[in-house]
């Protein structure tokens, strides 16, 4: 029998029971659809998280003080006040692989503006910090080297601080008091939203490092130094350059432990990626199970169909259909069910991914390879689960099949 007529015959017999065919396909539609949707959303949120992490800053290396150890009692990370402004100057002067170096001096303080007040984190930074951490100024200006040198009492505030202290007003040019020291607000940062770890990156006040260190802080403790490497591939080299420079600056003898630590984002990205990767895998295996159930549904219906159409099979065999013809006919029916179901499932899955994604604020990434895999998988499922019923049909004896009531 020719292929065209085989497909025509299969289509006709499926159309004879449109409701049943539709319900059978539904299993396939839901299976394929959920796999596609979940994988798209999983990859999307993975991309989101990576984006969030890299929004911390580009090629960022954070130098932290080492932990203290006094008489066997070990302090926590950063408990040693080993970083100083001199370290920052060394890195800035001698570094060749750094695009920017900025200290970070942190003071948690109560901020007062007119009648309102707000507790926030004041960060003493260098002008490069803006670039290192991917911040942008929404209005007004950021401070420059001159303000750092003169320990100017200027500050640039984050969106959250602006909203809390100056609701409905333009904060630029306003005065705020930080620990009773008056500062002039020269600019407002544009919103960066939550960090990957859930903290509000807009609840922040940036001021010149020297101003914070000497006017608000203790005059020596630099909490960390942020360094951005010139490119991603120079990260490792930049890391060892920091180590060399700081060890020289701290006069550490060879064999002595570093009194500082360097963190980069790759480990954070790796961790977050593996978490979302596990989630995606988990969700898609659940979806894969529903795909399997869909396949079994096809087998179920095909078995019913073979029994119901025993007489028809008998007629076909009597008028000269070879067993192979009957086998192929039922296989094609199963394949059509699963491929059509799969095609509709792909569309449904893409729609669901898009809909859910915009509803939940997660991006969805459509991987063309995934669609190819889904199509192949549905065809395989159709043939695999269609084979047993088809085999049963082709093994019928024409006399028994004709006599079947």
């Amino acid at each position, binding site marked *: 029998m020719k292929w065209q007529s085989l497909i025509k015959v299969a289509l006709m017999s499926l159309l004879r029971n449109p409701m049943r065919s539709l319900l059978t396909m539904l299993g396939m539609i839901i299976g394929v659809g959920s796999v596609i949707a979940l994988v798209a959303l999983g990859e999307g949120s993975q991309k989101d998280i990576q984006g969030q992490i890299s929004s911390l800053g580009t090629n960022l290396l954070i130098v932290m003080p080492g932990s203290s150890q006094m008489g066997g009692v070990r302090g926590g990370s950063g408990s040693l006040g080993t970083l100083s402004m001199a370290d920052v100057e060394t890195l800035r002067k001698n570094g060749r692989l750094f695009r920017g170096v900025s200290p970070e001096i942190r003071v948690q303080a109560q901020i007062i503006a007119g009648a309102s007040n707000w507790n926030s984190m004041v960060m003493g930074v260098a002008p490069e910090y803006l670039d290192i951490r991917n911040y942008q100024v929404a209005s007004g200006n950021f401070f420059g080297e001159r303000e750092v040198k003169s320990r100017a009492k200027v500050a640039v505030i984050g969106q959250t601080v602006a909203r809390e202290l100056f609701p409905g007003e333009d904060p630029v040019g306003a005065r705020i008091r930080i620990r009773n020291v008056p500062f002039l607000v020269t600019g407002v940062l544009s919103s960066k939203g939550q960090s990957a770890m859930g903290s509000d990156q807009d609840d922040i006040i940036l001021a010149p490092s020297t101003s914070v260190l000497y006017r608000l802080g203790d005059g020596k403790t630099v909490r960390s130094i942020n360094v951005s490497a010139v490119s991603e591939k120079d990260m490792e080299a930049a890391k060892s350059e920091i180590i060399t420079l700081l060890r020289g600056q701290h006069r550490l003898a060879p064999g002595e432990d570093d009194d500082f630590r360097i963190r980069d984002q790759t480990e954070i990205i790796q961790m977050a990626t593996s978490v979302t990767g596990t989630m995606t895998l988990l969700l898609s295996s659940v979806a894969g199970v529903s795909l399997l159930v869909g396949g079994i549904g096809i087998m179920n219906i095909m078995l019913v169909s073979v029994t119901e159409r025993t007489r028809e099979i008998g*007629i076909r065999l009597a008028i000269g259909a070879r067993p192979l013809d009957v086998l192929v006919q039922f296989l094609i029916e199963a394949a059509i069910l699963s491929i059509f179901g799969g095609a509709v499932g792909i569309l449904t899955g893409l729609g669901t991914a898009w809909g859910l994604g915009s509803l939940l604020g997660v991006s969805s990434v459509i991987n063309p390879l995934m669609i190819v895999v889904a199509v192949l998988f549905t065809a395989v499922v159709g043939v695999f689960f269609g084979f047993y019923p088809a085999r049963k049909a082709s093994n019928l004896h*024409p006399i028994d099949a004709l006599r079947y009531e």
Partner: protein
Amino acid sequence: MKDGIIEVRDLVKTFSLEDVQVHALKGLSLTIRRGEYVSIMGTSGSGKSTLMNILGCLDHPTSGTYLLDGTAVSGLNRTQLAGIRNEKIGFVFQGFNLLSRTTALENVELPLLYDRRHRIGNPKKAAEEALVRVGLGERLKHEPNQLSGGQQQRVAIARALVTQPSIILADEPTGNLDSRTTQEILALFQKVNADGMTLVMVTHDPDVARYAERIVELRDGLVLRDEAVIDRCKAVLELPPAAKENLS
């Protein structure tokens, strides 16, 4: 015997039902010549259905030989038998056995779709011609449930004719029909036979059998009686004028 289209020799068919051996055919021999119209009669249990199944290549004999149109059928496998059924045999059943929800035209076309050798170039046209030949040229697009019993049987006959088989096997073809439609079908058979087609018809009804030119009566798996019909009926003469036109 010369020009035998069907030649069976010493046909034995034994069924095993649990512990009991049932001998349906016990060494039956029979020759049917090209162009003959033969009725096979017998009570139930006489072996006529078993013989019919073997003649129709639907079943294997336990022993004995069967030559159909020069081909030794006994040694063929399932797939080869399917090919023989498709090319050399046309079936007409008691229960019509048409595909439901499928038009008359598609039903008649069906055997041609299974023809591996594509002997007939234009299946659709051949199917149409076969339906015209049985007087259903006006009902090509009707489905079985829109046709009367007689019309359905005529579609089945068209389906048997369309492959230009060596022989048509009819198994109780009038068993489900009233006397008037029975006459029509028998007249159609006589016309098809007059055109040169070999016909073998199984029936238990002596009145129906008399429309053939030869009656073979079976009993207990053997031929009891094999004789020519002397007072052969002409079915077409007994039909009302309107029905005659259909067959002209």
